[in-house]
């Protein structure tokens, strides 16, 4: 599957409500990210509505939600930039792949890479951070591959299934991402943001 032509990132909107709702009700979402099993479906739904209707596209938002979507399979996951500080040019990132079979695939890696490119090149951010639980090895390995440094080790920091696990704080600075991009540029050239935009434009032109 070619990522540039079949899978892309776009802003999440209200039509995505049911999809995101189903992801957030998934126990894995609460295990790997956040949330509480005690939340009622109504509370989850209200939270998503608030999230999707947060601000129009032309404002400087404090959060940006992107859906990973495939032409064949529809929405596959979500990437969110939260706590965006336009003063510090920083934010935190959360990634969730709804389709369990794709969590270890290139889809997650390339989606994160693409989202980071968007954050640094388009939003002009300087630093992106992530708090990732130690047992979520797939996620922190992806972030390390993108050039992020493990800055914090918080021991016995999160309770899951009655056990305490460590959490890692990662930080990625713009120049570190650029270095990785330069190093792997030849490999990832066809995954670039420009190709994605060109592909989307072509689709629009071809659509009836």
């Amino acid at each position: 599957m070619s990522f540039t032509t079949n899978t892309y990132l776009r802003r999440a909107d209200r039509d995505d409500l049911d999809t995101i709702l189903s992801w957030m009700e998934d126990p894995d979402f609460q295990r790997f990210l956040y949330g509480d099993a005690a939340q009622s479906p109504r509370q989850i739904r209200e939270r998503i509505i608030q999230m999707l209707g947060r601000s129009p596209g032309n404002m400087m938002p404090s959060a940006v939600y992107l859906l990973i979507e495939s032409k064949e399979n529809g929405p596959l996951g979500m990437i969110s930039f939260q706590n965006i500080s336009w003063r510090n040019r920083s934010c935190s990132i959360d990634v969730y792949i709804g389709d369990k079979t794709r969590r270890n695939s290139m889809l997650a890696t390339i989606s994160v890479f693409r989202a980071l490119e968007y954050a640094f090149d388009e939003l002009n951010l300087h630093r992106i951070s992530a708090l990732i639980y130690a047992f979520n090895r797939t996620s922190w390995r992806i972030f390390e591959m993108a050039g992020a440094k493990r800055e914090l080790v918080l021991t016995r920091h999160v309770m899951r299934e009655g056990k305490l696990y460590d959490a890692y704080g990662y930080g990625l600075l713009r120049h570190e991402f650029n270095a990785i991009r330069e190093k792997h540029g030849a490999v990832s050239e066809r995954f670039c943001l420009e190709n994605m935009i060109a592909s989307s434009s072509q689709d629009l032109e071809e659509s009836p």
Partner: protein
Amino acid sequence: MIIGTHNVLRFSEPEDAHFYRALYLQGGPKAALLDARREFGAPTLQEIRELLIKSESARAFLFTVEDPEGRLRGWCGLRALNIEASFCEMFMVFAAPEEYAGPMADETMEALLDRAFNRLGLQKVLATCLDSEETLHACLLRHGFRSCGVQRDVLYGKEGWRGLDTLALDRAAYASHPATGPGPGATVP
């Protein structure tokens, strides 16, 4: 009130808002006063009062530090309480950086740690400080805190980028540390 030899700790009150605002406005950015986006703002009196009212309803532990003569000297507290993982974050802000090297800071720290470990039964206390807050950093180390790592380029200001150190003190280290171990600490009347 928690009455020590060098200070008096009491719960924060809306009337303290003027003093708290001065802490924001004087002496440069402080890790304890950064918001969720790690921005250092200049809240209005009304915003600070709302924060205090909200913290009251949320049962947060915010305290004003007074000297024995009743002058307001600092703001401190326990927040971000995580019941499941049994930890919280402590903060301590004094108007003058040199206070962190003195007995008032030590006594305030002892009272906060006593509340966290002995009264709330927590297993870990976290604290943060900017790389420009050397005296606070030294105070935390003096009380047994150890660095969990520095987040780079977290805050931008006129002096450039600043890093944020996160430090932790767990129950075992607290109990064995001479400065904070099971000593008399502050007294509660």
